């Protein structure tokens, strides 16, 4: 699943939307988000330039498994309870896909469970 948390702050006629997108899946995800608010989306500027994640009013970025990333934008529109929607979440086709053997090697070792250790005959 991909989880989305947002908060908004309205000041001087501008709504600031901040959010975190969390990838709880076991694979990296290319996530695309857009504003649900009626009105223009003003992406942040870093050194006068729009960050690479922002195109056509949508945020798009890769989130590693179990990690999260922040995003934010401004808009003149009044805030709502759910200002951001998840447009898509899919595996990036960037040719970095691991071969099955590498996936297998990356998994945790298993161990006999407490159930086995405690009561080997029930179950």
């Amino acid at each position, binding site marked *: 699943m991909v989880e989305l948390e947002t908060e908004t702050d309205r000041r001087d006629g501008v709504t600031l939307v901040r959010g975190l997108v969390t990838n709880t899946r076991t694979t990296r995800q290319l996530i695309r988000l857009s504003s649900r608010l009626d009105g223009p989306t003003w992406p942040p500027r870093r050194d006068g330039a729009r960050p690479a994640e922002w195109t056509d009013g949508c945020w798009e970025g890769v989130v590693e498994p179990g990690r999260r990333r922040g995003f934010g934008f401004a808009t003149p529109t009044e805030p709502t309870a759910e200002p951001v929607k998840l447009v898509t979440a899919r595996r990036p086709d960037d040719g970095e896909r691991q071969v099955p053997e590498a996936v297998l090697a990356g*998994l945790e*070792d298993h161990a006999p469970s407490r159930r086995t*250790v405690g009561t080997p005959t029930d179950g």
Partner: protein
Amino acid sequence: MIVAVAGGKGGVGKSTVALNLARELEGVAVDADLSTADLPQGDGPGLHEVLAGRVDPIDAVEPVGSTRVLSCGRTLAGARAADVSELIPAVRRLERESDHVVVDCPAGLARDVGTVLHCADLTVLVTTPDRSALTDAFRTRELALDLETPVAAVVLNRSSAESERITDRVEATFQAPVTVLAERSSIEDARRVGKPVRDVRPKATVLEAFERVARTIERCDRSGIGVGRR
């Protein structure tokens, strides 16, 4: 064809599905849950002995009602001694003898599960309708796909009328056909005596669900889905 029955969360009914699916496919069920075995077991040698190289897998298969099972000794010493990766040659050997081998996966997402999923041609996911089981099943799906093993079917166990309404959503999310196991009494009766439902309640409606999953797997087998990927 090797079919992994997986789901991530423990206690969702993987062993029940594996045993009954093996019966419907006229195959062999293998209990790969080395530390908390759930498939019915006889008195003879089990998977631990096979993995330790003491017994040929074919000789360790025992009849359970009208189906056949390679069960798993339930001892801590056995669980420690056994290495799941050594399970793969045993499963492949059984596949040569019997067209279908249905492997009951351990719970969790550790390497033991990955090893079985990697060796399998197809995965059948088992889940209950609650959120945590669905999440674990979805993670198992992602792992199976990362290991290039397609998901043939999802079994939604312990369904109520309420949860049948989520079937469409589960189907859309998992992108696999969903079969609902709603009738619990005949499954419970069969489980109590450690046999497939067909042996105990031959007219149970739940058999249609197991049949449907079996037919899906046979269809994949015929159309070459999952075959030849290793």
